[in-house]
């Protein structure tokens, strides 16, 4: 029965999301009329800030966009610069880059799984309350995060805004013995990671199947992390240089962020762990593939609540990859390769923990940046998150206000939105009219 009333259900900060933004849900009678995720502040500032700077600066500058995934920003940046300059970096430097990125995946995923997402499934308001009852579990999560940070410290100089990364490679490359100290940490972390998969696989997951197009990188022969071409579940395949031909960003009224959609595709698309897994499960490392099978993940995963399982599997994959790279490592002859400037445009993509991160730079012949474009994963997922929330809320309107609000927050956290990449402040506001 439809009845009209003016009422604000809740206006609360959306906790346990990196950064802050605003979600507005409007319900009329028994119908969800509108769901809007307001994103105020995409990294347009950085695009403007980069203009006029040197071609060597994007890795350092863009790493400041996000404290959680600086390596993702650095990687897409130097790939774009090197592409513009006609340089491809292979060999040990490329392997070190993948190793560094594995560190970020481990640290970022461990943070999200243990401190941000798991409390939702276990019925705690946050990690502190969960830690009171499950201290050993939270400590396991912190150990895992520390293992990821140890990689970033060893390769990147430090875990927050790594300072050893430059266009063309690194300022200094570790010796074999310099890396070997990580092996013991990572072998111990592997046990924690496998236990993490078993733990999260036992959670209860609400039924929800998404029909979005999936978009992820592809690195045939390995799970996509630090580079690749782009593929979609609908069969599209294109390079970083073709990204803006296929991904259209449009202004929407309620947000200063741009909504992304695939050209010629009417629906929404999703990037991130679900898409990576669905499009690349066959390339998981052996231990990760076994863990995924034991956890009940099939060939694809389209339930966003199960993204926590995918993240846990990806932690296993990243650790196994890291150990493999370290064991095979031979230091490069030089820590970086020369990258002379030239006029042109370059594009870079990599798989940030939250999904595909794209950057483009235009340079003049001296290497001065004429234009920059940054498309973070959370901006790409914004339309999909809104659509999913609409589907999620509709059958749950009978829940009381607090519980519905709580479940909405959980549903948003499924996407691990790094809103500090794309925005500043988030409050959740539900209006029933």
């Amino acid at each position: 029965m439809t009845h009209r009333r003016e009422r604000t259900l809740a206006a609360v900060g959306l906790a346990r999301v990196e950064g802050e933004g605003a979600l507005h849900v409007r319900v009329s009678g028994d119908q969800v009329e509108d769901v809007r995720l307001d994103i105020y502040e995409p990294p347009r500032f950085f695009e403007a800030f980069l203009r006029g700077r040197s071609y060597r600066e994007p890795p350092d500058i863009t790493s400041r966009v996000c404290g959680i995934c600086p390596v993702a920003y650095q990687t897409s940046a130097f790939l774009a610069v090197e592409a513009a300059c006609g340089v491809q970096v292979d060999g040990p430097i490329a392997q070190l880059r993948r190793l560094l990125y594995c560190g970020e995946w481990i640290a970022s995923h461990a943070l999200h799984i243990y401190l941000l997402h798991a409390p939702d499934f276990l019925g705690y308001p946050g990690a502190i309350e969960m830690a009171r009852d499950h201290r050993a579990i939270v400590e396991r999560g912190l150990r895992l995060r520390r293992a990821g940070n140890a990689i970033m410290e060893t390769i990147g100089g430090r875990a927050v805004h790594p300072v050893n990364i430059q266009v063309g490679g690194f300022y200094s490359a570790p010796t074999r013995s310099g890396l070997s100290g990580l092996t013991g940490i990572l072998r111990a972390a592997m046990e924690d990671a496998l236990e993490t998969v078993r733990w999260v696989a036992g959670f209860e997951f609400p039924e929800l199947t998404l029909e979005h197009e999936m978009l992820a990188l592809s690195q045939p022969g390995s799970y996509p992390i630090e580079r690749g071409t782009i593929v979609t579940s609908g069969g599209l395949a294109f390079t970083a240089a073709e990204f803006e031909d296929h991904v259209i960003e449009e202004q929407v009224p309620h947000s200063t962020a741009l909504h992304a959609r695939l050209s010629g595709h009417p629906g929404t698309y999703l990037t991130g762990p679900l898409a990576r897994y669905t499009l690349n499960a066959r390339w998981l490392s052996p231990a990760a593939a076994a863990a995924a099978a034991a956890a009940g993940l099939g060939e694809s995963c389209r339930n966003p609540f199960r993204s926590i399982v995918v993240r846990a599997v990806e932690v296993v994959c990243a650790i196994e990859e890291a150990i493999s790279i370290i064991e095979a490592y031979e230091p490069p002859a030089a820590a970086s390769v020369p990258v002379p400037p030239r006029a042109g445009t370059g594009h870079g993509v990599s798989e940030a923990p939250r999904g595909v991160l794209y950057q483009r730079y235009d340079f003049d012949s001296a290497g001065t940046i004429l234009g920059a474009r940054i498309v973070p994963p959370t901006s790409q997922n914004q339309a999909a998150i809104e659509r999913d929330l609409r589907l999620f809320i509709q059958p749950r309107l009978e829940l009381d206000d607090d519980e519905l609000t709580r479940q909405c927050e959980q549903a948003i956290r499924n996407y691990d939105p790094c809103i500090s990449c794309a925005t500043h402040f988030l409050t959740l506001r539900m209006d029933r009219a």
Partner: protein
Amino acid sequence: MHLLRDSFPDTADGPRVSGAGRTVIIGVGNDFRGDDGAGPAVLARLAGLVPPGVDLVASDGEPANLLEAWDGASLAIVVDAVQAGSAPAGALHRVEITSLGAASGAELVGESAGLSGSHQLGLGSAIGLAQVLGRLPARLIVHGIQGGDFTLGAGLSNPVAGAIDDLLTAVIADLQC
């Protein structure tokens, strides 16, 4: 280097107080976000001024990173930009939390110092989590400086830049007692 230390204990009988360990000064913030750069600015000024053995650590304020940064410390000093009520920009706040009187440490920081805008899961959460896990330093001193402008790309506002010297003096004084 603290990241490579031994792992957490599996069990503990209560809050573990780090022993006669190191001293660490942690500068929290992003120097690309206006007054949020106060922590990094103080850290940069401290280089060369602090005695040997005092670690200087840059942090984004994320709780797990903060726990790692002060792991094994007998004295940890955190410097962060804050927004606390209607205090004027540049105002200095100092909160000391000891393991004995730490029951309300998270609330203490939350109420008297506040959290800067971009650290939703920040210092208060870190202290709360450290209490539960028994991972508070023996002494934790939080120096907050009231921020006025957190605009991306802006430098420190004049009131905050003008208060950095006083903040530096206050931090160094805490090293000597």
